[in-house]
């Protein structure tokens, strides 16, 4: 739990150079929170910090690779020494690899697990001792909606996200009688440069599946979560719907999701096998968005929903009119006749 208001709190965000991390840093800065930004790319971090400072808050930049435990410890220590306190720790830095399970090079798979899972583990291990001293604090692990259901061609990414959800569940139980909260945020498909930066061994260019949501929406949800901690929270309605469907009919959803991924997750453009940003960061992708929302065709979902509503109303009325008259209909019929 946050002991103080957001404008008097200190937040540490990993992976703040682009995507959700960058959006979170800026949204927190707008609310007056002191932010400490961590990522591998120093230049991009400085840019974010400058934007934050323009909003009149204090921002600190500590370039670090989350897969290095000492670097993460150092990050926590420096934040504590500069501001005396950490109220919110956002584990957010993640990489991904696209490719068939058996065709993905093991080195790339290991690196994904190192960054996504061990990065979060290092973060939690670094900050929880300070949280225990304070007896307060919120740890938010940004997982994904695929932490609830599988997805083909991204097995290693999905496995780490499942593990992160498990980590949150265990930590919550361990920290039961403290005022420390551990939350897992499950964003849906988000418009971030993740898809351009991910390693890719599928032979095709990857893209997010529709509907694609804005990273700033995730950032706002994350701040809500920090203020009112909950176990897990979906960000983006499609994830929420999919997760409910998955718990009702897991077999069916697996089949549908597999077909949807095959159809929609990749463009028809060929792509050379690449390591993406796994081992060396890519300085060109340092924005919040990845330009996916603009490319997306206007969503048919509202239209479909409206059509379904109209159809169901017409259907109900037809059924009501055509069934044997009784009750209210009987009375109305008698009065008319």
């Amino acid at each position, binding site marked *: 739990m946050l002991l*103080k*208001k957001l404008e*008097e*709190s*200190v937040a540490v965000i990993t992976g703040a150079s682009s995507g959700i991390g960058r959006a979170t840093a800026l949204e927190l800065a707008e609310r007056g929170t*002191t932010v400490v930004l961590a990522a591998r790319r120093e230049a991009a971090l400085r840019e974010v910090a400058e934007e934050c400072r323009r909003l009149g808050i*204090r921002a600190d930049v500590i370039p670090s690779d989350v897969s290095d435990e000492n670097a993460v410890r150092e990050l926590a220590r420096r934040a*504590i*020494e*500069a*501001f*005396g*306190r950490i109220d919110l720790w956002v584990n957010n830095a993640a990489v991904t690899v696209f490719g068939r399970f058996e065709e993905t090079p093991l080195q790339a798979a290991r690196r994904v697990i190192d960054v996504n899972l061990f990065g979060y583990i290092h973060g939690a291990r670094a900050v929880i001792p300070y949280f*225990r*001293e*304070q*007896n307060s604090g919120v740890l938010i692990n940004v997982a994904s909606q695929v932490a609830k259901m599988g997805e083909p061609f991204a097995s290693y990414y999905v496995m780490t996200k499942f593990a992160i959800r498990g980590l949150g569940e265990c930590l919550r139980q361990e920290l039961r009688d403290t005022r420390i909260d551990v939350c897992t945020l499950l964003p849906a498909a988000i418009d971030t440069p993740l898809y351009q930066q991910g390693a890719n061994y599928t032979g095709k260019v990857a893209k997010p599946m529709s509907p694609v949501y804005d990273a700033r929406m995730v950032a706002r949800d994350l701040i809500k979560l920090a203020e009112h901690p909950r176990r897990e929270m979906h960000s983006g309605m499609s994830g929420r719907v999919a997760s409910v469907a998955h718990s009702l009919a897991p077999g069916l959803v697996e089949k549908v999701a597999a077909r949807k991924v095959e159809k929609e997750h990749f463009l028809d453009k060929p792509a050379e096998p690449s390591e993406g940003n796994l081992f060396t960061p890519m300085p060109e992708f340092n924005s919040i968005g990845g330009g996916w929302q603009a490319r997306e065709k206007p969503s048919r979902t509202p239209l479909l929903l409206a059509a379904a509503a109209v159809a169901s109303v017409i259907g109900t009325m037809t059924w009501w009119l055509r069934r044997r008259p009784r009750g209210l209909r009987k009375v109305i019929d008698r009065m008319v006749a």
Partner: protein
Amino acid sequence: MPKDTLWIERTWTQRQVKTGWIESQWTRVGDFRMHARVSTSPARYESLPVVLVHGIGITSRYWVPTSVLLAPWFRNYAPDLPGFGLSDKPRRTLQVRQLADWMAAWMRARNIAGAALVGNSFGCQIVADFAVRYPELLSCTVHIGPTTDPKGHTAREQVRRWQRNNPGEPFSHKIVSYRDYWDCGIPRVLRTFANSLDDHIERKLPHIRVPSLVVRGSCDPIVPQRWAEEATRLLPKGKLVVIPGAFHTVNFSSPLELVRVMKPFLIEVSRSLEQHQEKAA
């Protein structure tokens, strides 16, 4: 263990944070018996004693939270200056200069040298005066919310700022400070306040040659950011740390944060002292 501070200590010792023990000790200095709360648990960095100097009317009692948290790392002493708290009271109210003299006399009586002087509020004025005139007794200074801001150097402005600060402090701060004012006597509190306005810390800061740390609570109305920055600039070896969400008495209401930001600074000083001693040996 002084009974009247047990409850303050308990709030900190029950958390999962390293704390030490403190006890009351009396020392005869000249004609006066001076009281101090001294940490008794073994400290990690024994080479650097830390002296905690209180503000107007208040006493070592409001240093207790900081003192217990600092105790595992540094031997610390929080004296009540003559006229305040449980120490003997001189007939006349003492000036800043005289209080600094008493500090020095007390430190000599207790064989403390090469100390880190930590002041809060008016305590910083005593620390600054002390640092200029007794440089041989100290190795570094820490100013937590140093008064008095030269822009606002009037009784009226200071009282106004003090009133604006009060709602931000925890309720326990009221209990402790009112008890301390009672021990001191209201007339003496007011006269000390008048004396504090005669003193100009900004003229003394440039003459402090030792490493110094300025700590400011981000919500502190008595020490605005502008003055904290100016004070840091005036200090030849000054460094500023701002603690988000803290008010004027950082050492009482945010002691954990204070100890966390002070510790690396003090450790660095104590390391350099040890190296110096080794070279001399």
